[in-house]
């Protein structure tokens, strides 16, 4: 991340509430955390999971229940995040034993099982109706204060994740993605590090989930459904798995496009599907790759002009 990207990020966060309604921009930031953390697994370590909604949803439920019981938010968020962490160790332990299609199927299977529990355990989760009646704590009850709160947590999470990715641990993740047998040969316990990657991704996703509860003061059951896991993967890929902030672009793009298209055409999922297919076929780097190419072309064009002017003189 260079100075330009950090500047753009800051500008986005400052301009955000003016570009989008409060509910939308906060949701974008929260899913931004989810997508960027999922990318630690997907882009950096090369693990495609269809189970991220499990952690997002479970953490949201835990956070919601703690708030409903009357405890402060400063207890709810850490406990829910810790809960995500512990569950990720359990789920991850089984999932990382396998890779590729099996890994996908395992994460999917766990997601389905947690969804089922959420669906059936209505006394706790509200079942299909979701968990409602949660109140936002007073200090973040205005649009402005809520946004500031979410942005601070957003930037903090991003900072932490960035530090992890740029540390030697991040390099190990990349190595595992590029060449797992070589990593094993050098002496790294690939399974262990995959579990670490899985846990980090899931814990931050859980953190985001614990915040989601506050947007609409409820936890709808669709946040733990496997299609939500699919959405998360789509957002991550759409933005670009090749760089750190790419997934955030994907989240903003996806939410904005889905809200815009849904007003225009009832068959808008078709458009999203086509975009998805095109990205997978031609633009594996996602939108961020497109933007990077655009920037390079612009720089080249301006540099050419500058050079020409220099030569003329």
């Amino acid at each position: 991340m260079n100075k330009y990207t950090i500047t753009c990020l800051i500008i986005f966060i400052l301009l955000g509430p003016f570009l989008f309604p409060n509910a939308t921009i906060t949701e974008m930031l929260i899913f931004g955390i989810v997508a960027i953390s999922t990318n630690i697994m997907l882009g950096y370590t090369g693990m495609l999971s269809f189970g991220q909604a499990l952690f997002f949803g479970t953490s949201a439920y835990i956070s919601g229940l703690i708030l409903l019981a009357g405890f402060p938010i400063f207890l709810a968020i850490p406990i829910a995040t810790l809960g995500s962490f512990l569950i990720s160790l359990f789920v991850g332990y089984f999932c990382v034993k396998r890779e590729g299609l099996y890994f996908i199927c395992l994460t999917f299977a766990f997601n389905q099982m947690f969804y089922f529990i959420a669906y059936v355990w209505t006394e706790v989760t509200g079942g299909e109706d979701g968990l409602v009646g949660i109140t936002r704590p007073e200090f973040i009850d205005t649009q402005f204060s809520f946004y500031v709160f979410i942005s601070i947590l957003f930037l903090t999470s991003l900072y932490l994740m960035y530090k992890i990715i740029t540390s030697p641990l991040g390099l190990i993740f990349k190595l595992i993605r590029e060449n797992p047998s070589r990593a094993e040969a050098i002496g790294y316990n690939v399974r262990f590090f995959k579990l670490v990657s899985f846990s980090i991704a899931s814990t931050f996703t859980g953190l985001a989930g614990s915040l989601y509860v506050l947007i609409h003061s409820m936890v709808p059951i669709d946040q733990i459904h496997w299609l939500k896991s699919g959405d998360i993967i789509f957002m991550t890929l759409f933005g670009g798995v090749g760089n750190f902030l790419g997934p955030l672009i994907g989240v903003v793009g996806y939410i904005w496009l889905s809200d815009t298209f849904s007003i225009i055409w009832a068959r808008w999922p078709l458009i999203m599907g086509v975009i998805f297919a095109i990205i997978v076929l031609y633009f594996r780097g996602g939108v961020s790759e497109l933007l990077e190419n655009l920037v390079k072309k612009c720089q080249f064009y301006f540099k050419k002009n500058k050079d020409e002017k220099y030569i003329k003189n």
Partner: protein
Amino acid sequence: MTFLILSQILNGLGLGMLYALVGVGLTLILGVLNIPNFAHGVLYALGAYFAYSIAKMTGSFYFAIFLSPLLVVLVGFLLESQGVRRLYQAHHDYQLLFLFACALIIQEIIIIIWGPIGFSLLPPPSLSGALDLGILIYPKYRLVLICFAFFMIICLYLFLTKTNLGAILRAGIENRDMVKVLGINVNIVFLYTFGLGAYLAGLAGALSAPIMGLTPSMGLDILPICFVVVVIAGLGSIPGAIVAGILIGLSQGAATIWFPEATNVVIYLMMGLTIIFRPQGLFGVR
């Protein structure tokens, strides 16, 4: 009580045969092309929708069952040649996601063409109604379905074991590179395999329509079950897919008796346990 258990066995068998057909199709594609076909569900749905339209236009159910899987094969060819082919060298994940995107697109196209409301497709009068088997009364159509699906599977088995193309397909599952080395045009093999998988999915969809009706989301609904079948069977095993399909059908039937709310989740539990404790599946080849 015997009435109940017998009916459940038949119910499970009926469902199981459908699952077996889609499962075999999926495992063929997975085995030969090594691609997880996330569009398998919509091919199943298209089979049902084509059958509905053909039956409506021609008035013949039998003709619909005959023609509709062939149309699905054409769709399969289109998908394979235009999309999947470009992704042979790509990572597993991208193939999967491309097919998933195609599934979403085709589902929306189904809604555009046929509308979002579900339909019924009736079995013809010759297959309607129930048969009195003495110990129990059971719908004629389901009995015929079990026999017909079984017959198709026997045909498939003969095709795979007795014909040259079948041998090539089986070889492709076991060792794709060797097949290339032997000079066989792998692209054609892949195309036909995908087509065959699509055929089985489309056939299963068409056959399921009189029982379960048609709805645009039927593709997305059956997709997880296809993968459960394949994983429990063991990737690349065709007899495994048949056994696994029937097993899953029977488990759902059993769950309905004793724990009806869990009919859906019981299969995911089975899949999870298989992956953890017997990762190669019941009949795994690799």
